[in-house]
């Protein structure tokens, strides 16, 4: 009999609500990484005068990663035994997806992101640059969220320009690359990781691919998925019952448990503006209310104060 996958803890879920990501380093076994890279295929070497985009598109067309229609049940997305089916079958991955999206999630799209080293640009007279920071898809006013799993099948060093993302930006409602003028934001992170690392992202997080200044082609595979049903209380909720009482605010003499849901939700990011940072807290509380199914939940009295006498 197969065991139930390990669900996320309340602290992990609160971290996802507050920061918009969860990172799992080196959790995909090396044989799956090797199989994935074989199925993804190698890029042909740079050739003088060759245009990069057609080379990239041809490689995508010829590799063994399937073309899949949007809306396909995630469980039916990849052939049994393929690297991606094996990856999605890992207990940690199943548990994280179930915790974030509930049962029977739906496949949205996937993509093999390839970042070429300078030799390819030198061969074509072009210039490699970082991708502008953006939010995927389009303006998305929903409170429910999709998840994007970023898979790093080989080790990524800083010169390779791993995914750049800005923790805590996911609750902002922006229009794709309209924010492209922001080159650098305090607290931004660059993925530097060992092979087999997974990054689970809220669909709204601001991110972009970095320029690859190494001598190796960089691969990252992204799968976007969404819930087909309720996302309420799908993680391991037991440790947070019953709801914790309000803690003292502003005039605080005793530090609270940093692993408590309230402490995690009320931790600011380095880029927070002084006034809108408080609105970020409000929006985190609103998202936790939705996920926990508790319309009275609050942290540091932000919502209770606003609702008093309303």
């Amino acid at each position, binding site marked *: 009999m197969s065991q139930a996958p390990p669900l996320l803890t309340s602290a992990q879920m609160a971290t996802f609500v507050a920061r918009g990501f969860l990172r799992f380093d080196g959790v995909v076994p090396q044989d799956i990484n090797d199989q994935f890279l074989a199925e993804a295929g190698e890029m042909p070497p740079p050739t003088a005068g060759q245009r990069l985009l057609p080379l990239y598109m041809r490689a995508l067309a010829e590799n063994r990663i399937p073309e899949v229609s949007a809306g396909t049940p995630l469980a039916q997305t990849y052939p049994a035994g393929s690297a991606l089916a094996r990856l999605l079958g890992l207990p940690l991955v199943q548990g994280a997806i179930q915790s974030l999206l509930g049962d029977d999630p739906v496949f949205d799209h996937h993509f093999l992101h390839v970042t070429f080293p300078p030799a390819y640009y030198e061969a074509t007279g072009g210039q490699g640059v970082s991708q502008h*920071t953006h939010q995927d898809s389009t303006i998305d006013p929903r409170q429910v969220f999709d998840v994007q799993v970023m898979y790093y099948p080989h080790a990524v060093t800083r010169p390779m320009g791993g995914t750049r993302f800005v923790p805590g930006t996911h609750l902002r*409602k*922006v229009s794709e690359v309209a924010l492209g003028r*922001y*080159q650098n934001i*305090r607290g931004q992170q660059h993925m530097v990781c060992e092979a087999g690392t997974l990054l689970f992202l809220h669909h709204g997080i601001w991110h972009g691919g*970095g320029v690859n200044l190494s001598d190796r082609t960089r691969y990252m595979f992204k799968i976007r998925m969404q819930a087909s049903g309720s996302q309420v209380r799908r993680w391991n909720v037991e440790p947070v019952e019953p709801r914790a009482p309000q803690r003292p605010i502003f005039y605080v003499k005793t530090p609270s448990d940093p692993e408590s849901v309230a402490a995690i939700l009320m931790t600011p990011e380095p880029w*927070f503006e002084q006034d809108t940072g408080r609105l970020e807290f409000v929006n985190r509380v609103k998202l936790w209310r939705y996920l926990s199914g508790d319309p009275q939940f609050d942290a540091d009295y932000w919502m209770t104060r606003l609702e008093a006498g309303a």
Partner: protein
Amino acid sequence: MTTASNARLRQKVLVLYLANSALDAPTIAWSVYDGTGEVLRMAGDEDAPPYATGLAALKDGWRLFQASQLNPHARGEEFDLAYLKYEFWFEQLVEVSA
């Protein structure tokens, strides 16, 4: 009218995003565009800001030419957040060799 001297001038642009509307508030995000072509700046190329505040940029010779407005919050949208709020544009004019 373009003269011989200003034809050699190029604009460097610095955009600072501050933590509130005061020019001496801390920098939370930044961008640099170099019209001389000497340096190619791009997303994610620097993890610490070039100036701690907007005032520090002024003291270093950058000229402020635009600041974002303070707008009231529309009823029903008070908690909606989108783009960074406190944006300040600076420039330097640099002479390049002909």
